């Protein structure tokens, strides 16, 4: 039998508790379809970045990706500047949207590839490499856009991507879930996923087993960059405009989400489903606090408290021992009956 994943249990319970508390205090508005959709459209951009951070962490070697939001902004800005020159958003809305999305994804993948090459081939520590590329990407975005915001416009397909719903679920959230599902499957069922985790767990053993470590790192960081590019597309679709300094606070929030999801900063362990739930929990919590109208400093405090309690729960294995106590208490009763 698989061991019970304590983290998954807590996160799921938290989602329910927050939804319940929100519904209770807002007299139902919090649970209204409109607000649920509104919250769901806010999750993907930061959630995708958090998955990127998780992949980098899982690869071990002190892995982290600090360049996520900078790359997402660069992807939106660069693709926006180029595509708006060649395709008209009003005359060819579909072509425009596809070209913009493709452009942003390509920029994202290239940026990630650059990270991967620097880390894998030149052997630079990820935190230094991505700190450097973060500044590089931000700088490029400033130069490309002249420091101003770039108007992408909102042709129908673009607007739908950022704000539209299908069967009541926002497109952007569906995309986020689909990406999470695919990556989750890749990590669990493919040789690449297994090698990624094993390399993170024990780099030396991976070396002796003949794993193509450089390729694994390069692919991992390229994937992270690709996710940043996708995040850039969603940001542009939501906000009509993109700018180089959007979401400066996302850098730390993405790491917070990953750590809260139980991803091991030393590498080798992390579950995508937990990252998705963790992103959802943070969104529910901050929307709830906005609903009550509490100061935003309280939100930072609440996030910090949440993270610390998660670390404590993980450190002392509270959920696991609780589950063990429950099962051992139940079995004698079963034999009696």
């Amino acid at each position, binding site marked *: 039998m698989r061991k019970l994943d304590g983290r998954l249990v807590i996160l799921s319970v938290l989602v329910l508790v927050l939804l319940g508390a929100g519904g209770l*205090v807002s007299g139902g508005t919090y649970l209204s379809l409109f607000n649920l959709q509104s919250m769901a459209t*806010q999750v993907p951009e930061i959630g995708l970045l958090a998955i990127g951070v998780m992949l980098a962490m899982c690869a071990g070697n002190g892995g982290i990706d600090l360049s996520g939001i900078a790359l997402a902004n660069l992807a939106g800005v660069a693709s926006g500047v180029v595509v708006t020159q060649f395709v008209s958003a009003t005359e060819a809305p579909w072509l425009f949207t596809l070209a913009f999305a493709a452009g942003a994804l390509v920029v994202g993948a290239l940026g990630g590839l650059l990270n991967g090459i620097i880390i894998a081939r030149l052997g630079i520590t990820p935190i230094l490499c991505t700190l450097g590329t973060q500044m590089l990407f931000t700088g490029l975005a400033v130069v490309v856009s002249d420091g101003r915001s770039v108007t992408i416009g909102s042709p129908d397909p673009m607007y739908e991507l950022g704000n539209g719903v299908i069967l009541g679920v926002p497109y952007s959230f569906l995309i986020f879930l689909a990406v999470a599902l695919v990556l989750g499957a890749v990590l669990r069922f493919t040789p690449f996923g297994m090698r990624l985790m094993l390399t993170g767990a024990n780099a030396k053993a991976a070396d002796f087993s003949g794993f193509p470590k450089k390729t694994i790192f390069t692919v991992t960081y390229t994937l992270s960059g690709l996710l940043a590019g996708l995040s850039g597309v969603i940001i542009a679709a939501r*906000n009509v405009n993109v700018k180089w300094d959007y979401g400066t606070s996302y850098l730390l929030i993405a790491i917070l989400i990953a750590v809260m999801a139980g991803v091991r900063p030393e590498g080798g362990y992390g579950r995508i489903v937990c990252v998705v739930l963790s992103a959802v929990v943070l969104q529910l919590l901050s929307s709830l606090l906005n609903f009550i109208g509490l100061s935003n400093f309280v939100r930072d405090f609440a996030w910090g408290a949440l993270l610390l309690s998660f670390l404590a729960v993980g450190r002392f294995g509270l959920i696991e021992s609780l589950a063990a106590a429950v099962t051992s208490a139940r079995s004698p009763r079963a034999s009696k009956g």
Partner: protein
Amino acid sequence: MKKTLKLGVVAALLASGATAALAEGTITTVVKISGIPWFDRMETGVELFAEQNPDMSISQVGPASADSAQQLQIVQDLVAKGTDALAVVPMDPAILEGIFKRAMDRGTIIVTHEADNQMNTMVDVEAFDNAEYGAALNARLAECMGGEGKWTTFVGSLGSRTHMQWVGAGEENAKQHPGMELVDPNNESFDDANGTYEKAKEILRKHPDIKGFQTSAGNDVLGVGRAIEEAGLAGKVCLVGTGLPNPSASYLDSGAITAIGFWDPQKAGMAMNAVAKMLLEGKELTDGMDLGVEGYNSVTLKDGPGEGKLLIGNGMVLADKDTYKDYLF
């Protein structure tokens, strides 16, 4: 422990939910950043307006960090919550265009401030006309200089549109005084008091006979004021520029700063809320109307860049050594 925490939160939520339900309408002011003096001062205005309208639920919120994404999230949650009217001071007008449009489509009233390029807003409230402000600063400077002598100007950066408008209007105004000679204009300060101090020292060395400075960014008066004071020229060289009363107080007292110009965020906050209330009640805004807020007694109404209107008050304040104590923030 966790349980008690949750219970506490729930109790707090219930209490706030109950008050919100009683109100006739809700107006929430969303500022760029909370916890800085400028927006703390604005909050006093919002609170004052709340006292005057006890039947409405009026409050101010803002992100804890200066990030347009954080402000966007707050605005989006407030729209989803069903807030009737939002009075927003955008961190970055472009980023909020999308959510403002969706909010207005949904029937939320949107009023903005310091965003005269915002396309999707119903009314943008500006404290004053930029040209008039620049001219007024210069008129005060000319009065101090006795209408003659060398003078120069500082701007935050050459790309800062409002600053260039202010000094441009100042130069126009100075033409009335043939004795005033503009030297080395448009020094860039980058709103950095230390850098401005160094630059002002250079100018004082290069032009020992200089008589006046007109500055634009909020910290410029501090840098130039320090240079003037250290050169022992306080009261002999005139300095008029944008600044805040509290930080400028000691230089105003010593005479290193002649006068500071600004607009009072307290009044701007009240004006935004007053406009939002009128729109909520379905009242029409007219040119020359009185918002019932000091400095907004006879406002100018123009067409904005988008569908909305641009409402310009006469809320500029010029304070000197004798009057700055009325505005301590």
